[in-house]
């Protein structure tokens, strides 16, 4: 049984709300996947952005939803694809450079998390991870409760190991992309996701 710091989990949930992170609790990874697909089903089709004058990278703005799962294992990917394909979704693991106009959902699994800033850490040396989590309109992260530590100092060893080994691209993500650059009005979704969902997985 994984070691869960209940206080840290509560703190994470408490700190997530003010930074526009939506949290759902699910029993396992399969349910987290199902949740991501449900989110995709309910959302408006992706608002594609031209990558040059009048030119889109992929997709025709029609009904085919695109979901990218860039850091799932082979087995996890199969489960996800089996759940998603019957819904008519395009499920991808790579090839994000062909989707610079945007995709509907990115689903990723987290490496660790920091409760007091509602931060999820995702190792992103893979270009696909970096692109999918920026190009998606909605990013859904599966995070195990046991991965949540109270403060950033508590994940120091975890980070140090990754960085010592290198090369690495380690991402702290603490909400959807946001700006307050015009009249200091908080606006969500500048360059990256418009929504960030975290599926908190037991264990």
């Amino acid at each position, binding site marked *: 049984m994984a070691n869960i710091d209940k206080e840290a989990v509560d703190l994470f949930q408490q700190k997530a709300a003010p930074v526009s992170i939506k949290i759902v609790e699910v029993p396992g990874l399969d349910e987290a996947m199902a949740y991501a697909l449900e989110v995709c089903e309910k959302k408006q089709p992706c608002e594609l952005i031209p990558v*040059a004058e009048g030119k889109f990278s992929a997709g025709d703005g029609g009904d085919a939803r695109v979901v990218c799962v860039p850091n799932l294992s082979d087995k996890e990917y199969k489960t996800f694809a089996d759940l998603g394909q019957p819904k008519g979704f395009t499920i991808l693991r790579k090839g994000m450079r062909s989707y610079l106009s945007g995709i509907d959902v990115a689903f990723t699994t987290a490496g660790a998390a920091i409760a007091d800033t509602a931060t999820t850490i995702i190792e992103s040396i893979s270009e696909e991870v970096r692109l999918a989590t920026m190009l998606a309109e909605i990013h859904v992260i599966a995070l195990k409760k046991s991965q949540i530590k109270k403060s*950033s100092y508590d994940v120091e060893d975890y980070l140090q190991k990754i960085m010592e080994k290198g090369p690495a691209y*380690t991402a702290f993500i603490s909400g959807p992309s946001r700006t307050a650059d015009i*009249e200091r009005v908080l606006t969500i979704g500048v360059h990256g996701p418009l929504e960030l969902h975290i599926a908190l997985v037991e264990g």
Partner: protein
Amino acid sequence: MQSAKSMNEYHGEIQESLDNSFLRQALDKFAVAYKANRLTIFADINEKELIKEIADAKDESLDKLEDLYVQFKAEAEKRGVQVHRADTAAQANEIICKIAAENNCKRIIKSKSMTAEEIHLNHALEGEGLEVAETDLGEWIIQLRHEGPTHMVMPAIHLSKGQVADTFSDETGKKQESDISLLVKVARRELRAKFANADMGISGANFLIADTGTVGICTNEGNGRLTSTLPRVHVAVAGIDKLTPNIHDALRVIKVLPRSATAQAITTYVSWMTGSAEHSLNPDKRKIMHVVLVDNGRTAMLKDELCRSALRCVRCGACANVCPVYRLVGGHKMGYVYIGAIGLILTYFFHGRENARNLVQNCINCEACKDACSAGIDLPAIIHEIRARLVEEEGAPLSSTLLSTVLENRKLFHSLLRFGKFAQRPATGGTKFIRHLPEVFMKGQGFRALPAITAKPFRDRWAEIKRILPTEGKLRVGIFAGCAQDFIYPEQLEAAVKVLSANGCILDFPLEQSCCGLPVRMMGERKAAESTAIRNIRAFDPARFDYIVTLCASCASYMKNTYTEVLEHHNMRTEAQQYATRVRDFSSFVTDVLGLTEENFTKSGETVCYHSACHLCRGLGVVKQPRYLINAAAEYKPAPEEDVCCGFGGSYSMKFPEISGQLLDMKLTNLEATGASTLVADCPGCVMQLRGGEEKRGNKLKVEHIAELLARQLK
């Protein structure tokens, strides 16, 4: 970007800002909201302790910066990154242009970098025919408008959504509505194409971690991630002061930086790039990554004992966020590239004396920046030091030389003050204010009435006062008068004498004392600052006094906090320390030392509001005591922004009357709104400013020193 060639031109620029009603409103709203949000976001951490830790760690890093550089370079290169070092801005630009040429890059996207602004990188790149697009929303807006940033974190804070809509309409060739969420969408759309087609990305860096060769970047928009992911080539450009030993140090700074910058617990994204990451378009499937470390005077600053702490700066912008002058004039008038208090300093070091000369004068010395600084930098002290250097290099203005000469000679100074009372007679019309001074002496001073010099200064009354005072008591207290109370408001001192002598103090007033020296220190007159300090230290023999009490917050905090520094290289350093230890302000002396409580006062129904003097609340950390005393003697009516500067700032109000007057107006509007009948402050300078303003506004408030209220209500 402040570009005035002369002080007159600078005043003209300042007036433009003061007349810009959108700017004024935007910055006012920001100043008030920031302070409230900052309090909330720092509530769950020990701010002061953390800032001290950051300051210490930064100092330690600066001590071994060369080692950190060598280590960072080795570790980053081990992981496939090329590390360059540029001694000057020109060299840095050259290196980056060369990287672009070698990799055949034509289109460049940038995420925010103050260092790139510092070295005017865009200018250099465009000079090579390269296409450059900023991708941080605020930076992009000002790039399209050909402006410089007005805030280090929110570069376009000076613009309205209407102005942004106009700019975007021009850029896109179609009419854009002034709806913020739609405007953000325009940026999302327009910039995506730039991201997709760029071959080089340039970012800044918040951290360069030596032991793993990691580059750390904080952004909210996520543009830093796209900039460092989409193009084939990524160049991170940063000052060498961003080198830090390990991840722990970086994580510590992140606890404070976003809180200080925008009152966020953390920025939405923090990206840690250790080595060159995957890139599918390059033949070896690795991104081409370069780090350019910019020196541009930083190594020289390291050797500058008095100013090197400015290199601790983490670029949070808090010093601008809390600056009352920034709030009035905005970043274009309060910085060259770097903005706010740190901007005044860095302009001198990075962009030269010519650009700094006027700017460094525009600090009112309220210490709000020092109080909010993420890295515990004593910003006002460094600004004073720079003024001193400018004086030494280029000679002092006549007014400053005159003041120094006079202050260095107490007898001359006091004779002049005495002479003043005769000279002013035609001007006062027998009132307590100077009313008819010729315009040449009163330029821009119409916002307040200036007080008249008293007929009989405190020093001439002392012998008489002393005769009836008790000679027995528990504490021997020396009164330090300061110029304003001795020669303008002796009644304030008499009130204090009443309170102190009734509560066990044996008082004395050494006649050899003179001005505390703060005015000459503010003007950068080093020698005069030394000699005034020495005079006062000699006047108060430590064997004769348990305490030195002053009713002037500025004298108190200056003598207590700065005398040892002023005399650091003088053989009287020990005496300065003894002196500083004995100095106390009136309010905290009355409560904390004499132990007076509400029992000692008759509480009246008089409604009293309070102005918290900068040098009392921030300079000395005295916050609760005066409010407690007011409530013991009367009905205390709290006002908004009690701790914001009244605009006096000593000679500042003469130098920048247009700003001083605005600050005073805002202050009195807040205080009058309490409906109180009386206003008290702990500082004769503030009383002078506030009373002068009330005289012009119709005396809705009676303005006095807290000692006067307490003396009246003393049982």
